């Protein structure tokens, strides 16, 4: 099955920047790479990321060429990048006869905050804004997030966002230090999100 993209890339369909109580959120640009690298290369952050960059140059090369610019938003507080959020629009699964109606209806989101600013609820604030972008700005019907089950901070954000835990893959994912460990999946539907905001 081929993955088709919506005619207009998702970030171009939204108005920027998005402001929350304490944060400003906008698509990343290559000038953000040093700040993102500084956050993502910290061991306690890299612990749960899919890969760790060995050098800034390797990081910048990878990020410039990998489509990250189309799926990553910078999270700023008072002009300083304090983290990033991930938003990727994907196709839902559909039977062949209706597959066109399933395309581009779902998103996967993710988040991370510089440990220097941990404990202030910034990840929840940023990710909550991303849910709003998905459901309101982009009109999506379902948003998912996945994490290692042991990543307590991220699991807590999912809970605070009101996402439903839908699955736990037993020893499904291979961690570089911890071996085969569990993954969790959470999701939220547009109707549920609207009902919670009432």
């Amino acid at each position, binding site marked *: 099955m081929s993955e088709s993209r919506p005619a207009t890339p998702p970030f171009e369909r939204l108005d920027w920047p998005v402001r929350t109580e304490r944060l400003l959120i906008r698509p990343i640009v290559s000038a953000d790479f040093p700040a993102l690298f500084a956050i993502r290369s910290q061991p306690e952050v890299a612990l749960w990321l899919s890969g760790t960059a060995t050098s800034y140059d390797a990081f910048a090369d990878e990020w410039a060429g990998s489509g990250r610019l189309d799926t990553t938003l910078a999270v700023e507080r008072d002009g300083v990048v304090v983290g990033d959020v991930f938003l990727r629009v994907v196709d839902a699964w559909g*039977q062949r006869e209706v597959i066109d109606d399933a395309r581009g209806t779902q998103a996967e989101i993710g988040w991370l905050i510089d440990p220097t600013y941990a404990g202030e609820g910034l990840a929840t604030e940023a990710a909550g804004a991303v849910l709003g972008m998905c459901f309101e700005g982009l009109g999506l019907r379902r948003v998912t997030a996945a994490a290692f089950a042991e990543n307590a901070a991220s699991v807590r954000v999912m809970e605070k966002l009101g996402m439903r835990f839908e699955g736990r893959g037993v020893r499904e994912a291979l*961690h570089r230090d911890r071996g085969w460990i569990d993954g969790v999946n959470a999701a939220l539907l547009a109707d549920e999100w609207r009902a919670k905001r009432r």
Partner: protein
Amino acid sequence: MTFDRISWPRRTERLILRPAETADLPAVFAVRSRGEVAEWMPDRPTSYDDWLLRLGRVGAVDRMLVIELDGIVIGDLYLHVEDAWTQVEVKEAGKGAQAEIGWCLSPDHQGKGYVTEATTELVRLCFEELGVRRLVANAFADNEPSLGVMERLGMVREGRFRSESLHRDRGWVDGTSYALLREDWKR
């Protein structure tokens, strides 16, 4: 290719399992195009030629085994060995570590335990001969016969995904996923 790594055919008490060949495809189509089978399948084929083109496009025959009873193809199995999710640094160790399985049987032969018999052998092949450490199977949450097979295989339900899949007649419905680890597999 996965199927080249082990020997065929496989015999169970009543059945023969072997990789699908071109000559089997009309029989597989006859099963897949039945309404009650297509209900839960990704595709409801109506034209044999169009279906064949789609199979070719996605390489589906390379993942298809046929279930034979007394020389007649009564259904098929899906087997896709894939890489597990890993962090980048340990990617090699995840290669071919996981497999997804599926099945489909002619309504004329249901209720006799043929799918359970065939998939029990498929599970054994995955764990003992293909080096798979984790098996997964997905289904629409309302596809009770398939969930029954997963449970009889000792697979454990790991997830139920609300309104995640679009069904041609039922609209958005729940999906479910089951898995079995080699270390939890009861021989």
